[in-house]
């Protein structure tokens, strides 16, 4: 899949007596098991790129630094290992901010290495100097400005530990050029020095027992599974808990797959565009237990009306999440897998047949549905994708209507099979993240589902997919609109469309072909199955351009700021009031 870079023609320099900072840095990255670096070079990082010529780490040259961060993110979500980014100073570093923020919002491990001007020039507005450590401070888990070359091994060790323990998050390391080109005289094996950092583990036993009692007293329990459960690989534990309790399970957008969505106990995604039956279960449960979810406003809508009357339990590794949005009746701070494994031992098997009957009724009464009467719909294309792959593919989405339809129709069977920008909702994420995921899972089918708007934000990475002959598949759901925004304007703003028409879209098939990538066009209902199946089976990268009806809307919908009671299941016939919720 990957050719060694053609640039490796220069002869190896004669062995130097002393290591440089850059050599020490790359050695450390190798020692930390880094396979890939996603990056783009520039003056301040030339010393590091030079060392990479002789490293076993594979350098993936991107076409824009934002792409590098989303690739590293997709790689991390697909493999559980931190993704590594390397960019130059100034604009190279600021181009990573969106990707860092995206990773931070979704607790993704990532190491971002940024070049910096030489130390004596810091603060003097040197060429391409940007205070990236300052700029990124609110969106990183931690960051470093390296002051001494000999500190590099300690800093890298700390960074790799911090980024992927506890609640994961991106770590940025700013590397002045004199630090990387200067001599390294220290030891490569250094101790960490982070006395203020501790990682919650199995949780307090008393807290767990209290929760078990609440479960034992409940008649209508509901498990709410979030990204934290996926990150801690709590799949088996959650399954054991749900089965012992015979409790239905709902998941957040990022908790998809932790509990198999094809199971009869699973009600799919809840929240703004979740299934009606998940939201009905939410309203009617007598106990809700969040496992690694942060009760985001896309789920709870209005926290004053959220699950009133139900016992609320919160299991989270991040103490700051407890009581941040929803005040729980009981909580445990710890790793989701370890806590749930222990909890399973203390809950009693339940007879929930009545509750399951009730939930089953909602499922029957309010199924997800769509019709192709007016032409090919996005739902049809996405549903067909699921019918062909049945959870075997890793689905990576961009942000918008297509993302919600993918969440509704592409059921996930494992946490790492679903990758989407949840907290940040970053358009432009999907395609590069799918490339990163494909690097992480070279043998698996990886499919990006993108909108025509978001795809065009990072489409330059077609070059990256093409060069590496990555088998990644991209489905562009082309409705010729910034669809999600158009939907809000239609429903809440009298259909006064403003800045949502994507006229001027390119011919996506020709665009793909211009990059040497196979392009497939679909615009008829009867073609979807055949063409999609063939495209997914193709060996190399494919861009599938699906032209769908322009005015499709995502339902169900809970208007922002409203509780699940206000769910709109069918397209409304009257004008709705403007939503009060955040976005």
């Amino acid at each position, binding site marked *: 899949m990957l050719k060694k870079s053609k640039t490796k023609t220069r002869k190896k320099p004669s062995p130097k007596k002393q290591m440089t900072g850059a050599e020490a840095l790359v050695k450390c990255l190798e020692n930390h098991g880094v396979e890939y670096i996603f990056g783009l070079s520039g003056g301040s990082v030339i010393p590091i790129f030079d060392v990479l010529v002789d490293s076993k780490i594979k350098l993936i040259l991107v076409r824009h630094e934002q792409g590098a961060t989303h690739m590293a993110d997709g790689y991390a979500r697909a493999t559980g290992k931190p993704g590594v980014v390397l960019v130059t100073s100034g604009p190279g570093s600021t181009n990573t901010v969106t990707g860092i923020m995206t990773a931070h919002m979704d607790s993704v491990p990532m190491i971002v290495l940024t070049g910096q001007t030489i130390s004596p020039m810091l603060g003097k507005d040197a060429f391409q100097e940007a205070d990236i450590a300052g700029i990124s401070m609110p969106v990183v888990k*931690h960051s470093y*400005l390296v002051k001494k070359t000999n500190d590099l091994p300690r800093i890298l060790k700390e960074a790799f530990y911090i980024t992927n323990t506890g609640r994961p998050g991106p770590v940025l390391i700013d590397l002045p050029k004199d630090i990387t080109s200067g001599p390294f005289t220290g030891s490569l094996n250094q101790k960490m020095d982070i*006395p203020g950092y501790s990682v919650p583990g199995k949780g307090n036993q008393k807290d767990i027992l209290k929760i078990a009692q609440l479960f034992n007293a409940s008649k209508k329990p509901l498990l709410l599974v979030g990204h934290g459960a996926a990150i801690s690989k709590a799949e088996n534990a959650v399954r054991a808990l749900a089965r012992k309790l015979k409790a239905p399970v709902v998941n957040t957008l990022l908790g998809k797959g932790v509990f198999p969505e094809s199971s009869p106990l699973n009600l799919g995604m809840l929240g703004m565009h979740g299934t009606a039956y998940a939201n009905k279960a939410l309203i009617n449960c007598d106990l809700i237990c969040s496992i690694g979810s942060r009760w985001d406003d896309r789920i709870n809508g209005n926290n004053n009306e959220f699950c009133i009357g139900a016992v609320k339990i919160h299991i989270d590794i991040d103490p700051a999440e407890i009581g*941040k949005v929803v005040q729980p009746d009981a909580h445990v701070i710890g790793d989701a897998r370890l806590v749930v494994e222990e909890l399973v031992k203390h809950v009693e098997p339940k007879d929930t047949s009545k509750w399951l009957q009730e939930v089953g009724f909602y499922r029957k009464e309010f199924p997800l549905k769509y019709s192709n009467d007016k032409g090919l719909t996005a739902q049809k294309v996405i549903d067909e994708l699921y019918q062909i792959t049945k959870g075997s593919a890793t689905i990576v989405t961009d942000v918008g209507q297509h993302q919600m339809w993918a969440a509704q129709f592409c059921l996930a069977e494992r946490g790492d099979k679903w990758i989407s920008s949840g907290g940040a909702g970053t358009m432009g994420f999907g395609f590069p993240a799918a490339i990163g995921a494909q690097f992480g899972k070279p043998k698996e089918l990886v499919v990006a589902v993108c909108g025509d708007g978001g795809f065009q934000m990072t489409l330059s990475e077609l070059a990256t997919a093409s060069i590496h002959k990555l088998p990644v598949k991209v489905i562009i759901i082309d409705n010729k609109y910034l669809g999600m925004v158009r939907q809000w304007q239609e429903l809440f703003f009298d259909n006064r469309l403003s800045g949502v028409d994507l006229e001027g879209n390119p011919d996506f098939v020709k665009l793909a072909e211009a990059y040497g990538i196979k392009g497939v066009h679909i615009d008829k209902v009867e073609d979807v199955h055949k063409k999609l199946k063939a495209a997914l089976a193709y060996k190399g990268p494919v861009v599938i351009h699906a032209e769908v009806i322009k005015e499709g809307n995502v339902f169900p919908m809970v208007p922002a700021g409203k509780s699940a009671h206000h769910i709109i299941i069918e397209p409304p016939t009257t004008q709705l009031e403007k939503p009060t919720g955040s976005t």
Partner: protein
Amino acid sequence: MAKANNIKKKDTHTISMLVANKPGVLVRVALVFARRGYNIDALVVSPSVNPRYSRMTITAKGDPDTLDQIIKQASKLIDMIHAEEHSDIDAVHCELALLKLKATAANKTVIAKLARKFHVRIVNESKEAVIIEQTGTTEELDEFEGLLKKHNIIEMVRSGKLVMAKGKEST
């Protein structure tokens, strides 16, 4: 620094933090407050007994729920050893003020009298001005400041509150 007497007392909080003695820590802490709309009224950064750590004492106002979030979020900073709110009951607290007053022949004796009464020191005297140093609780400082108002305060500097937990408890 905001005038202490404008602050609704129950909304004013004193938080003591022990942090790694590293560059940038102050910015990280300040961001946690600013993001959540908390106004920092006073901030003292000082060395601790262990040179690896610094002490930050922050006086800020806002609602208690937000403060709870701020302390939890600040505790997550990698460089944060611990962060805690202290009440006047569980901790000793004091503050230092320097006040510069316009000196006239007439008020010098009044000032000297007041100084004796309030156990404050006159640390500098010149023809035009007198500088007074006062140590005490925030309330004592506020009271003294109020009394001196009519004596033409030219400048005032206050250290911000310092706290130390009583007994065996660590601050």
